[in-house]
């Protein structure tokens, strides 16, 4: 069973990610459908506990604005770990559209990005996306990457007051 780091714990990942050009009948089991499929079929997709939506890096979370309240699972794809668009998308989903469900990073990310990803609102990470070899996992536990820094200057999803306001307090 593939694994997922979710809310700082490693759990089984039974979710499928359907391809971007997916069309037709949904497979058995929980799955993330691509944004385009969701927009075309959302009236027939009424099971938020087993159907989530994934966005690619160039797609606009604005298109989901009206649906976010109905969804419990969202995912954002990183075509490459150097492509940082997903960080902005995640903040918009959390801060502007107030999404409180699971927000998953899929595609290609590296462990040293976990701290920034979680600050921007991701709370679930596919381990296969992290492309980890086991040795690296041993030397530094995945959960530890989420706590690399105890000080942050900026306001972000996980800390709504910037340090300059906390300093003054």
């Amino acid at each position, binding site marked *: 069973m593939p694994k997922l780091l979710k809310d700082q714990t490693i759990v089984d990942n039974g979710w499928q990610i359907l391809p971007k050009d997916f069309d037709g009948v949904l497979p058995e089991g929980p799955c993330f459908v691509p944004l385009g499929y969701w927009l075309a079929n959302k009236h027939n997709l009424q099971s938020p506990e087993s159907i989530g939506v994934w966005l690619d890096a160039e797609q606009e979370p604005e298109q989901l604005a009206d649906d976010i309240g109905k969804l419990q699972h969202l995912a954002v794809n990183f075509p490459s*770990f150097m492509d940082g*668009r997903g*960080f902005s998308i995640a903040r918009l989903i959390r801060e502007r559209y107030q999404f409180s469900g699971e927000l998953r990073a899929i595609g290609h990310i590296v462990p040293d990005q976990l701290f920034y990803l979680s600050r921007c609102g991701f709370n679930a990470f596919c381990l296969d996306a992290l492309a980890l*070899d086991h*040795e690296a996992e041993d030397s*530094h536990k995945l959960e530890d990457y989420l706590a690399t*820094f105890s000080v942050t200057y900026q306001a972000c999803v996980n800390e709504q007051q910037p340090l*300059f306001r906390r300093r003054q307090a």
Partner: protein
Amino acid sequence: MYIYDQHDKTLIGERVAQYRRQTDDYLAGKLPDEVFLPLRLQNGLYVQRLAPMLRINIPYGMVSATQLRTLAHITRKYDKGYAHFTTRQNIQLNWPQLEEVPDILTELAAVEMQGIQSSGSCIRNVTSDEFAGINADEIEDPRPWCEIIRQWSTLHPEFAFLPRKFKIAVTGAKTDRAAIQVHDIGLQVLKNADNEVGFKVLVGGGLGRSPAIGVAIKDFLPAKHLLTYLEAILRVYNRYGRRDNKYKARIKILVKAWTAEVFADKVEQEWLQEIDSPSTLTDEVIAHAKAFFTSPAYETIDGESSEAKLQSLAAEQVAFGKWRDRNVIGHKVPGYCAVHLSLKPTGVAPGDVTDSQLEAIADLADRYSFSEVRVTHHQNLVLGDVKLSELPELWQAAKQLGFATPSIGTLVDMICCPGGDFCALANAKSIPVAEAIQRRFDDLDYLYDLGDIKLNISGCMNACGHHHVGNIGILGVDKKGEEFYQVQLGGSALDDASLGKVLGPSFYAHEIPDVLERILNIYVEQRIEGESFLDTQRRIGIAPFKEFIYAKAA
């Protein structure tokens, strides 16, 4: 200067620990090259032609005597005993060992220095005016704003993987000395009719392959909105900047493709959604930042009497007078001045300093200028708060140490990148060309007669030597494995910013001094009383230069 509190200290310590672990993992084969690459870049470590190169931030150009002594120690212990000041107020080590970089960063952290985001596709070291806080033409000291931006941009989780590097410069003066028009974001501190502080915001300036002058997208941004507005610009760029071609990935390309109006509107829409969020600056926060940049304990001095003494000394000692004319700048406080320490002696790469020179500079700063030094983007240093009465003594000391080359602002006070001698990106060498020019133009009276001329040399089109904004720009190019040099005329990075135009076909390195001499001869022949080189060139255009140079060469 800004002084770290326990938050800053904890953060920088955790950053060093993170990088030590990343380096260990890399050396143990647990981190592949392509993953380690952006991690080391965001700590300042490049891998260059001959060795790694470590770029250390000097935020907005302010460095203390203590920090300079640590830099000297580091160059001795970990490098070959010298370092290089860059055109963006940073300092670089050319020969560190990759394995030792975590130790270097540990030693730097102890004196509140770091290399965070000094390279890579992220927000770089914020730069400013070397005369911040001391020049009479200042509207407001830009450094508190720079420090607020430094903290905001440091380890910003949303903007660490941008399409490309991102540079911000701030000026608080009426005359722009921070080249804000050629930065991704340029900020000019202003006061409106009600005496409220704000910023004029420029975007999309930059050098490199597609040089561009920044355009204003906000004429007056009230100061408290600084960070929310910057965040809106960065978010629009992060989402929509091109990522398919690294040569088209800078924000200037996006601004051009959309037009400035469309870009400004997109930023405005984004910003209005976040306006008044907790990142809005409060009066207390601004006051807190300003408290680090108060005036030092100036003495009350009779400036006129000091001035009279200096004038009589200048009459006796011509060399002192010449040095003072070129290398000493006025100060807002009577009886004080700012002094350039030139890093452009003939035969030394522009911006290079040895370990013992770094220590000597620290000593001069302790003795004459409240233990602080400023780094200029012309690759010189400035002692910002020197008593006029101590100028003769400082001149003697600077002369002995080799920092008194009286050529600031002249042709031989060149900006020059490390070039093909050091840099893996370069197409051609730049340092030997600079040296040949210094050797040819060694007559100070001739240089003074020519007046202010900015000569900028880059070894490739990435333009680290800012050749596009030199009044005379020289660009190294590679043609079938041979090094050639293209000459451009008419650039400027000041208030009248403009990009130079190419003179014509490129030259061999050995031809460059002759070509320069001909260019200068045309200027001398054609100038009208009081005209600078740039004035004359703009008036007569490029054609007379072209005709004369290529006719003679043929």
